[in-house]
């Protein structure tokens, strides 16, 4: 730092304050270590930030709404400024939501900010999760953060559904009715669980106040704690980075926390907040006054949940009607399977995925360089397969809207989906794996032979060859990156006495899984191969030069012709 800066008025005033704080908190020790912490810069590393900032926007707008919202199912007769509902009986929750929308200035804006931010929060979590998955950022030492992220996703979905349900409009009440039906259908304890949750039968007088405290304190409190832990771990473990020149498993390349990263991340908060507010100025969301107050005798066509619940609704729609009755008991698989068993399995597999993959690789090393998705074809294929599965369920949840907009039949869509859900994801798996291997092959070709320039040269001797440009150092660093695993072989060959060693079932499973992951892959060129190919290229160029020298006229390069 220059001496001028040290004596500037800002630094001086800041210095006095810093001195005061440091003498009491000892903040300089922390700042010394962290102000020049390096963060790698990549747009996809900001997806998680979108979720974080949306969460802050949710806390701010939610606090505003809580000042006016009445979480009560007590019956009220509406006499506000929204004339269409004048004199209609409704709950106080719904009446206060209408009041926020029409009689609190800026209230509608804040309601819309809150709802758009909620949709944004879960969308950002989803794409952040996909980024972490496809780049292998969940590998050691980040498995715990993966689990925290999973918990945040699950809590976020619950929190969103709770918020959707609070205004007690016709859509939210319908959603609660479905949730209650699902709980009631749980074997053995369902009836009791539903009675306890709702304080008796549906809908009762208690549920919205109970849901309110869950929505404004319990879940956000837990989420706040988990988000703090999530960020502290990122801080402590340092961020991952994509492979590239100068980037290794042992370093972090990027910009310092202060000032560049602070300015970018702080600025991005304002951007996310600003865009959410702009969405709320321009596009209507959840116009509850049009839905009307909830009453169990009414329903509207197109009763849909928010997008993050759509896949669950789709699963409920697609499930065939299987129910068993025996010994005086009812087992509703048509409700249980799509609403609890399938999501339960999906979330469990998602949560333990890092451990499954580690079991297959047997790799206990730390990984800080991200994978390029093509370099781990099986993981990438599992990912795209899951996306396909999720999206088919999503389509199922929207089938009535799709039917009316594309002139289709909901029955046909449902039947098609019931078949496709078993056929399409495996096909996507196979296709993705093939595609990744093809990309790997192309990378290998590029490393060994460089780029095809499309320029055909003719040797004076009449021989044609295509000019290949070698890949740049930067690109080579990227292409060579990645860990190549060999499938684990079971060593059960007999020893000198002809006795086969015992192989535990676990080892057998590990070998199977490892074969599934790494049985088919394209080897990266070895150092010798690379050297050899470089040598070969040199020879070719030399030969060309020699022939030119010996009198042959060079033929004009003819771009476009492809040598075979």
């Amino acid at each position: 730092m220059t001496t001028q800066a040290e004596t500037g008025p800002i630094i001086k005033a800041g210095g006095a304050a810093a001195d005061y704080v440091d003498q009491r908190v000892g903040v300089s020790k922390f700042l010394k270590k962290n102000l020049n912490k390096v963060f790698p810069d990549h747009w996809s590393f900001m997806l998680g930030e979108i979720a974080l900032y949306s969460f802050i926007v949710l806390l701010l707008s939610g606090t505003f709404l809580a000042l006016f919202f009445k979480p009560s199912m007590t019956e009220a007769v509406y006499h506000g400024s929204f004339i269409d509902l004048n004199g209609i009986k409704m709950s106080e929750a719904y009446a206060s939501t209408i009041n926020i929308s029409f009689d609190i200035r800026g209230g509608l804006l804040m309601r819309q900010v809150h709802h758009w931010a909620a949709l944004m929060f879960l969308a950002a979590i989803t794409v952040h999760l996909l980024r972490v998955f496809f780049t292998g950022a969940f590998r050691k030492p980040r498995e715990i953060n993966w689990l925290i992220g999973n918990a945040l996703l699950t809590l976020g979905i619950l929190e969103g559904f709770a918020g959707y349900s609070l205004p007690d409009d016709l859509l939210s009440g319908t959603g609660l009715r479905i949730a209650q039906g699902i709980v009631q259908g749980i074997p053995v304890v369902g009836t009791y669980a539903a009675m306890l949750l709702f304080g008796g039968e549906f809908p009762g007088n208690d549920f919205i106040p109970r849901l309110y405290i869950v929505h404004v304190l319990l879940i956000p409190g837990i989420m706040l704690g988990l988000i703090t832990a999530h960020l502290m771990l990122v801080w402590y473990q340092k961020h991952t980075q994509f492979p590239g020149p100068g980037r290794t498993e042992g370093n972090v390349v990027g910009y310092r926390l202060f000032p560049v990263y602070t300015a970018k991340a702080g600025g991005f908060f304002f951007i996310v907040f600003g865009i959410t507010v702009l969405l709320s100025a321009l596009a209507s969301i959840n116009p509850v006054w049009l839905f009307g107050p909830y009453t169990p005798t009414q329903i509207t066509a197109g009763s849909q949940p928010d997008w993050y619940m759509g896949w669950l609704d789709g699963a409920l729609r697609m499930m065939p009607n299987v129910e068993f009755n025996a010994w005086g008991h009812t087992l509703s698989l048509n409700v249980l399977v799509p609403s609890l068993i399938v999501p339960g399995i999906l979330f469990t597999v998602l949560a333990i995925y890092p451990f499954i993959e580690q079991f297959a690789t047997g790799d206990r090393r730390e990984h800080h360089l991200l994978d390029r998705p093509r370099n781990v074809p099986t993981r990438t294929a599992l990912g795209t397969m899951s996306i396909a599965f999720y999206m088919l369920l999503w389509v199922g949840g929207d089938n009535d809207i799709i039917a009316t907009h594309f002139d289709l039949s909901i029955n046909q869509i449902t039947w098609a989906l019931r078949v496709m859900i078993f056929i399409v994801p495996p096909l996507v798996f196979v296709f993705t794996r093939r595609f990744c291997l093809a990309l790997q092959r192309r990378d290998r070709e590029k490393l060994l032979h460089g780029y095809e320039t499309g320029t055909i040269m003719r040797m004076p001797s009449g021989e044609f060859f295509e000019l290949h440009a070698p890949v740049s150092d930067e690109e080579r660093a990227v292409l060579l990156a990645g860990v190549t695993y060999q499938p684990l072989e079971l060593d059960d060959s007999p020893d000198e006495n002809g006795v086969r060693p015992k192989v535990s079932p676990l080892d057998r499973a590990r070998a199977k899984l490892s074969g599934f992951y790494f049985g088919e892959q394209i080897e990266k060129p070895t150092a010798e191969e690379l050297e050899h190919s470089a040598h070969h290229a040199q020879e070719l160029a030399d030969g060309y030069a020699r022939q030119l020298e010996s009198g042959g006229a060079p033929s004009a390069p003819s771009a476009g012709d492809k040598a075979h």
Partner: protein
Amino acid sequence: MASFLVLFVGLLVMGGLYAGLTSAGTASAAGTDDSPQAIAKGRALFLEGCASCHGLNAQGGSNAPTLIGVGAASVDFQVGTGRMPLAAPGVQAKRGHVSYTQDEISALAAYVASLAPGPAIPSAEELDFEQANLQQGGQLFRTNCAQCHNYNGAGGALANGQAAPSLKDATPQQMFTAMLTGPGAMPVFANSTIAVEDKQAIIKYITTIRTSPNPGGMALGRVGPVSEGLFLWVVGLGAVTGVAVWIGAKTS
């Protein structure tokens, strides 16, 4: 045999009651010109444009229902919304180009009404919904209509490729006659179950909400959370991700 007879008599009485009820409506049909000239003109138009499917005497055919007893209201709705003549055989007749003038539609209606008593075209007083109760209309709409036509009258899917149409372009008279006659898959909401003033309230509610402002901004089709989710993913997440790409890009 005796029970059969009792049943038969019961049915006759029932049918009589039903006919009496609906013909009471016919008598007050101010909207229908039931002069012999109109009926004759309607019959001519019918023979020319409708009889090939509905039969020479409107008795119905293999692909078309009988029109005896459907009443003037049914003709007014089906022809007046362009559903008839059917553009192409399909699952469901859809709102389309209206092929007849209002005079011709009235004549057709008069002819069909002359065949047998049936629901009549509502009178001007019946259609006057200005004084109707908007809020009650909302309650009735959400109880009887929204399940198919959606909370905003945007329409919705039914089984086997059918759909409840959007109410965006429906005139008050068409809404009224649709309720009276139950076209296609739609059930009949006769004046005996939803009284005239309740129908007026429903019509008032529909005409109010379909042109109601969108205080919050773009309506996104008013089909509920599906379009909101799509908008968020494409526009909302698209915009913030776009900024993220800008942040991560190298400055030249």
